[in-house]
């Protein structure tokens, strides 16, 4: 097999696995800060217990997701060198400092304060603990800032000069805030908000269906539904803006997304169809006349560039075309479910949330609604992955758009070696993904489970405040 293809699959598998966990955690940590603040504000009232329970369960899930994110992230930092040595040789002057700042300003911050956040209650003051939680949340978001800056620079490179075939930084502000970065950052942070919201809502709904809910479940569910209902319309607007930005800087990607084969005026919008790259057409296309021109250029008669303008420099059409439709489809489903659920909350707003050990029937949601929410638990993952496939496959055949071709930067390892490690990675990732989802379900059914037999206490140590981790 072709080592380029194997290396691409390996890297794709790795980033796909990795992105699942930051997608949850970037936003989940801010949910935890919110639960903490509500808990502090409600101290001395019966509501405090509910917020504490929500914090307790979701901290456990955060810790688990964090561990998975860290180990798969470390893998990524090595694979730049093991599989794509040419990338760092050519673009290291720019990619290096961005990755370096990520490690220095964000990675250390989150990893170090995570210990205090998870296990420090009772050892530091409540205020210091809140500071530690904020450091983790801030570090996670800052991490996203730097990584997305680098990713965006690879899509829309700016602020560089080329000397002797190597790229050099000319203007760091232009590099960091390159043309697609603000759009990508907004799109990703909102995607994380939605991923975390639907995860919290879905797992809480599942707890209600299984009668394992506690007072925290209702609060978590309500918070998540409201967050999702607010975030989804903003996300649709941000996504549209991101698309217009892509049209300006990467028209070939847009042509692949929309399945526009030839440059045309008043281009129709292809809803569905089967891209046929060999013949250069979309088979069985279901189209709406002129709509693509209207959406992309906000003008019914606008001319859109087709794939024929980019011979040899446009991405493979079918995966980009399909991924985009999956992303948009899931987004629309999210809009419907989030607003439907928020509407239910609004209609029944008078009903008080029970404080202690509530039964399933006290929820404002019908069983059908809970089932729909539970089915949407991992919808954020689906949309996130599809979205990343659109933008990353859409960048091909380049690694740095228009400048460095992916095929020129790959390491020439024996295919058998790359294949064997690829199989090992895939096996481990599949095993971990199944375990992760299984453990999430298990924790949802045992939200306050003592998962460890009580350990003997050191005579000198402070008593732990709560149940074991």
């Amino acid at each position, binding site marked *: 097999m072709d080592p380029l293809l194997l290396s691409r699959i390996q890297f794709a598998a790795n980033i796909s696995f990795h992105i699942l966990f930051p997608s949850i955690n970037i936003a989940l940590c801010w949910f935890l800060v919110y639960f903490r603040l509500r808990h502090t504000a409600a101290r001395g009232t019966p509501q405090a217990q509910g917020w504490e329970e929500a*914090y307790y369960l979701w901290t456990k899930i955060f810790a688990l997701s964090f561990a998975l994110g860290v180990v798969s992230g470390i893998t990524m930092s090595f694979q730049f060198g093991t599989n794509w040595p*040419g990338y760092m040789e050519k673009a290291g002057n720019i990619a290096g400092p961005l990755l370096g700042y990520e490690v220095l300003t964000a*990675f250390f911050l989150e990893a170090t304060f995570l210990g*205090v956040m998870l296990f420090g209650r009772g050892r530091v003051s409540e205020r210091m603990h809140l500071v530690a939680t904020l450091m983790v949340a801030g570090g996670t978001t800052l991490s996203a800032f730097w990584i997305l800056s680098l990713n965006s620079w690879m899509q829309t490179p700016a602020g560089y000069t080329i000397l002797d075939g190597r790229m050099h930084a000319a203007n760091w502000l232009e590099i960091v805030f390159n043309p697609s970065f603000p759009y990508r950052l907004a799109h990703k942070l909102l995607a994380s908000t939605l991923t975390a919201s639907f995860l919290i809502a879905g797992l809480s709904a599942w707890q209600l269906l299984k009668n394992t809910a506690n007072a925290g479940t209702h609060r978590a569910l309500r918070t998540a539904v409201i967050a999702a209902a607010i975030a989804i319309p903003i996300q649709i607007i941000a996504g549209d803006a991101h698309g217009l930005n892509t049209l300006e800087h990467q028209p070939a990607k847009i042509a692949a997304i929309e399945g526009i084969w030839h440059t045309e005026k008043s281009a129709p919008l292809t809803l569905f169809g089967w891209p046929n790259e060999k013949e250069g057409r979309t088979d069985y296309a279901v189209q709406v006349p002129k709509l693509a021109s209207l959406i992309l250029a906000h003008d019914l008669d606008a001319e859109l560039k087709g794939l024929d303008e980019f011979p040899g420099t446009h991405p493979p059409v079918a995966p980009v075309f399909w991924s985009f439709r999956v992303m948009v489809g899931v987004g629309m489903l999210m809009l419907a479910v989030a607003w439907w659920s928020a509407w239910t909350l609004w209609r029944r707003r008078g009903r008080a949330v029970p404080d202690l050990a509530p039964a399933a029937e006290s929820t404002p949601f019908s069983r059908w609604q809970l089932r729909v929410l539970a089915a949407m638990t991992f919808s954020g993952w689906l949309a996130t992955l599809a979205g990343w496939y659109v933008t990353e496959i859409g960048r091909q055949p380049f690694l740095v758009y228009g400048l460095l071709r992916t095929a020129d930067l790959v390491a020439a390892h024996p295919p058998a070696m790359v294949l064997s490690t690829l199989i090992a990675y895939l096996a481990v990732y599949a095993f971990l993904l199944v375990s992760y989802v299984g453990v999430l379900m298990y924790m949802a059914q045992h939200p306050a489970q003592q998962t460890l037999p009580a350990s003997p206490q050191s005579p000198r140590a402070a008593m732990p405040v709560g149940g074991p981790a």
Partner: protein
Amino acid sequence: MEPTWNSILPLIFMAVMGLSLLAYVILDGYDLGVGILLPFADDAEKDIMVSSIGPFWDANETWLVLGIGVLLVAFPMAHGLVLSALYLPVALMLLGLILRGVSFDFRVKARASHKAIWNTLFAAGSLLSAMAQGWMLGSYLTGFDTGLWALLFAAGIALTLPTAYAMLGAGWLIMKTWDGLQLKAVRWARAVLWPMGVALLGISLATPLVSPQVFDKWFSMPQFLGLLPIPVACAAAFFAAFHVINRPKVVAAGYGWVVFASTVLIFMLAFLGLAYSIYPYIVIDRMTVWQAASAHESLVVIFIGVAITLPVIIVYTIFMYRVFWGRAVALSYGAPPAADT
């Protein structure tokens, strides 16, 4: 070479990278060591062992990312060369680190009947990472030679680095635990001290033999006399550890920390010796620090970042270690919900 800002900056980054990797080897070394020792403890002891490293392991592993990050940032030419030459051991190390890192969290969150599996994966992942790192070190020292002697040399380090990590882990447990487990940790330290010592001596003697340049650097006068404190101090630290673990009363009297401190000292001295042997190369006999360095303007940008953030990182790392100072306790995420009690 004229000492100009242009020629000094790569050296500074070489130092930052070296110190990050040293910090990694010591910090993740003890928690990998605890993982390697895990199968020898009973179930209750396993929980304490894992609790003793719980708040630290994430941050410990970050030093590896920084070390590799600096390699990538400051020496992009060497980054690709080194990592593609180490493709297989790197992949094995990563698989080990993945399994280990996630098992730490899974073992207390999965259903109780699955805990044994996660314990096994935790120990196996720790051992696999340690061995792969030994292989990487061995392969690096021989300049990625694939001849029989070089492979044997790498295999030798791969087999013995886990004993050094286990020694660090045992030293850590002597400090962080008490009673039965502490006594066990002392026994473990006794078991791995000599294999570690022999391995260290073997590597120290073999490295000059594998590379004639290294031989000249060490065994010519007057350098040899100036370097003598390194092996002497190493032997003294080894003896200190040996002395304490053979006298349970000394441990009981509160001097158990000497074991960990001496092992750390041995690691530092070995690192110093290694750094002296390699300098000024980043890929032995092939690429010097200056040949591999990134463009000057990129180094300046990242130097500013390092100069500001690294001291801050060290401060909050010390703060975190102070928060969890003292004996290990069962880890807790906070006040337990009412349903629990």
